[in-house]
């Protein structure tokens, strides 16, 4: 066993220091913003979840007074021209891909068209002597124009800028990450990933709850409803279900068909006008990762008669 300890890739102490303290605190904060119960499974309304989330602060929220004290570059995505994110219109009036402007020691970079060629953005950043690449990934509607990922090297602390109430995100509640703040003295390199609208049939790379404002199942209740019933409700909204997620014991798998009499626990945006339903044979969802007694093993899914 001594041999095995020699190939331990990382110790607990080392692991604890791999992330910045602010990052770890932010993760804890974002988790506690989440509803303590799974909304679809336990019937907590999105309105309740929204209210409770709004009362909590999100640690990523940037103290803007500090931001004004230093020269900053502000990158802001405003979504597609004319696009709506949740209840709010975020699209710029013009169709230009990217624009830079300087005001009071800040450079504001506006992404005007998240569907433009990312190479154009990289070139723009290079012209401003910033080694920053910008990538756009297809995301579900309420995440369009929000920051999905920030990767950086060089020690500078690139932080998101949030706009409260502009959208609903999986972890941020109503504090919508719409841009990032970069110190002017930034000499490292960074990769920024923003969410863009998906094209028809294109799978989302990042999603939030299908019940969030702006998503296709907003306002819909599925607790205690069968697959057949939910499919009918979705059909009325023009939404289809290409895949079902079905957990059996430790194993969760995606299947194309399940019995119509099974129950729906949750839903995740999959692609435009498509969702993935989490389903199972029982009326209530077993706890995440709960061991399943042999005697209660669910039957193998068979084709659903409701299509």
């Amino acid at each position, binding site marked *: 066993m001594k041999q095995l300890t020699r190939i331990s*890739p990382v110790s607990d102490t080392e692991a604890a220091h791999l992330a910045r303290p602010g*990052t770890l605190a932010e*993760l804890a904060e974002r988790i506690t913003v989440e509803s*303590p119960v799974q909304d679809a499974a336990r019937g907590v309304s999105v309105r309740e979840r929204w209210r409770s989330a709004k009362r909590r602060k999100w640690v990523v929220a940037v103290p803007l007074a500090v931001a004004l004290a230093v020269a900053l570059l502000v990158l802001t995505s405003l979504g597609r021209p004319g696009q709506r994110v949740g209840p709010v219109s975020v699209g710029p009036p013009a169709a230009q891909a990217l624009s830079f402007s300087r005001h009071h020691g800040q450079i504001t970079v506006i992404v005007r068209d998240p569907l433009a060629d990312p190479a154009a953005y990289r070139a723009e950043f290079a012209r401003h002597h910033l080694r920053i690449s910008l990538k756009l990934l297809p995301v579900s509607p309420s995440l369009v124009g929000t920051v*999905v990922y920030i990767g950086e090297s060089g020690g500078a602390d690139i932080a998101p800028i949030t706009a409260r109430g502009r959208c609903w995100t999986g972890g941020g509640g109503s504090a919508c990450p719409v841009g990032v703040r970069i110190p002017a003295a930034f000499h490292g390199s960074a990769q920024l990933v923003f969410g863009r609208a998906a094209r028809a049939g294109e799978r989302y790379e990042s999603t939030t709850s299908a019940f969030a404002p702006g998503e296709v199942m907003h306002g819909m209740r599925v607790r205690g409803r069968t697959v057949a019933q939910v499919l009918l409700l979705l059909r009325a909204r023009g939404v289809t279900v290409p895949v079902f997620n079905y957990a059996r014991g430790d*194993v*969760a798998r995606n299947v194309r068909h399940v019995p119509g009499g099974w129950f729906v626990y949750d839903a995740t945006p999959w692609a435009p006008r498509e969702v993935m339903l989490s389903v199972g044979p029982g009326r209530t969802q077993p706890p995440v*990762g709960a061991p399943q007694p042999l005697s209660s093993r669910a039957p193998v899914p068979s084709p659903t008669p409701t299509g």
Partner: protein
Amino acid sequence: MPSPLLTGRHERSQRFEAVYAAHHGPILGYLLRRTDNPDDAADALAETFLAAWRRLEDVPAGPDARLWLYGVARRVLANYHRGQRRRSALAGRLRADLAVSYRPPEYTGELAQIAEAYRRLPAGEREVLALSAWEGLGHGEIAVVLDCSRNAVRIRLHRARKRFARELAAGQAQSRSADPGLRIPNGDLA
């Protein structure tokens, strides 16, 4: 020891933050030791603690919380290995940090042979060995993580150690036969 009853949201948050503060390091360590992909470790950490937040009443008090979290993390990773991977919006910053700060080690020489012998073991045997050698757990603690009896752990560990020793010896023999020129004066093989 049962978890204290949680009444208010504030109390709930405080309890979660205490669990998170005490165990995020070991759980991240556990995950990084079992995947070559730091992105997966970041996502699995978020998913594990999200499960803890949602099932806080089930999380045992005291040091047993870590065993409970290992059990959840194990199941999350098992799903990842079966292709049930979903990038978590919660873990974006952590993924970014790990991408910069962590690179899985690349072993050479004897360590590479040990790592290869370990990789050749079935997943269940790898896990029981790792819980013992890397997390330093005893039989009773491993039994809690794997949700089986202490006796079953003892048997699994015994089998896993034997198989690991066999795989290690086989790897070393193969290495010797692949490079017979490395014979040293006293007759042993390097």
